[in-house]
């Protein structure tokens, strides 16, 4: 599969950037509004009182982190199938944002756990699975960092991304089995109605931010790849154009 050359020119990037920035601003406003709404209106929970407000950032972050990995998996699958560089760049951008979001989810989980159970880490099934997802993200990003050849890096990270995605449900299931067998308290049910609306609003706000970040990072990646292609094609043409001197 020949290397797809990049047809990106600066005007394409400029118009895209206009649209993306608007999305960023909207995301921030939505997030602020959603958080304000829940912090002000949500009733204290029966057993953990106001601590439940931490759920409004922790749970949406966790949902979107898994979603980010889903984007990595889909983009990786499409890259293996079509071989288009844009899918490779999309997977890389989604992985970067996803890893950060998973890290944040972990931190929030621990901040929530400390006052509730008195310890920073309790091997709670959801939190532990998120930790494993975090390491799968990190392995993906490290592989990309350690491989230089663009084609090899794209192909290898696509395969690693896919296998990682295959493992996410298995990890989640086995960690839950592992914990429920040993009957420790798990995080509260996050479905009772009074709670649900606030959660959905925040989840959507985080989703908007996720899309903005991935798109923005993706556009920068395409600009970088476009710059490399310009230089490479120029080097090719220059080499061929020059009068072939002695050996």
């Amino acid at each position, binding site marked *: 599969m020949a290397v797809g050359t990049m047809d990106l020119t600066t005007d394409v990037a400029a118009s895209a950037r206009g649209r993306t920035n608007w999305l960023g601003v909207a995301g921030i406003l939505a997030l602020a509004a959603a958080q304000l709404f829940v912090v002000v209106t949500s009733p204290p929970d029966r057993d953990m009182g106001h601590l439940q407000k931490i759920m409004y950032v922790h749970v949406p972050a966790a949902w979107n982190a898994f979603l980010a990995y889903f984007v990595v998996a889909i983009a990786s699958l499409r890259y293996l199938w079509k071989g288009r560089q844009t899918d490779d760049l999309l997977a890389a951008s989604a992985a970067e944002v996803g890893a950060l979001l998973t890290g944040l989810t972990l931190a929030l989980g621990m901040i929530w756990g400390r006052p509730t159970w008195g310890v920073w880490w309790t091997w709670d099934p959801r939190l532990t699975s998120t930790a494993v997802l975090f390491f799968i993200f990190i392995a993906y990003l490290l592989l990309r960092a350690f491989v230089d050849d663009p084609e090899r890096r794209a192909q290898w990270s696509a395969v690693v991304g896919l296998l990682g995605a295959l493992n996410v449900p298995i990890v989640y299931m086995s960690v839950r089995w592992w914990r429920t067998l040993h009957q420790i308290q798990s995080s509260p049910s996050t479905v009772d109605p009074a709670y649900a609306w606030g959660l959905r609003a925040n989840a959507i706000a985080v989703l908007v931010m996720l899309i903005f970040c991935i798109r923005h990072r993706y556009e920068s990646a395409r600009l970088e790849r476009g710059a490399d292609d310009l230089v490479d094609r120029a*080097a090719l043409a220059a080499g061929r154009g020059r009068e072939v001197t002695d050996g």
Partner: protein
Amino acid sequence: MTRRFGRRWALRGVSLTVASGEIVGLEGHNGSGKSTLLRIAATALRPTSGSVVIAGTPVQEDPDRARAQVGLLSFQPGLYDDLTARENLVFASRMLDLASPDINAVLERVGLLAEADERVRTFSSGMQRRLSLGRLLLQSPRILLLDEPYNSFDRQGVQLVNEIVLTVRDAGGCALIVLHDRHVAGGILDRAVRLRQGLTDPAPSGEGLEARIVEDVAGATV
């Protein structure tokens, strides 16, 4: 045909045709892209752009058919140091799915029958190259791609290589031999092409880098 490694163009523009029954030399200094061109022709490497046509069919369509016909003697021996000479050839014959290969005959032909059961790790580079030639014979290719086959060879070695090249040519095949300068081949070359900074001389013009090695029956195009 072009090929890029990371950010460096190894091949900028190559158009080369080796016709059936022809023995072509490919000259050029180190770094001129000779080995890259040969590895692409042997389907060991994918070109960045351009195409390889072997015996009339583009390689992408049926790589296995192309690989069955092409014999590459790469710059690296491609042998297993911890295995003996015989075991290396047994392994090669199994990978080539040969029903009943005559390993001893091949070992004798390349002059390694005495060292058949010694580990390749103990071999000199000349002996390792002879074993690689032996593996090539097992494959009985119709197209020979040899990367500096005469290196670290004495007169006998050069003669062995040329014998093999001639038998392949007489059977209707062809050969592309990469070398530092044409005289080393002892007059076996029909013609020689010079490669400078990844460009064949004369360099092809325009984007159409399609190149043919052969018009008719047995040949490879790169």
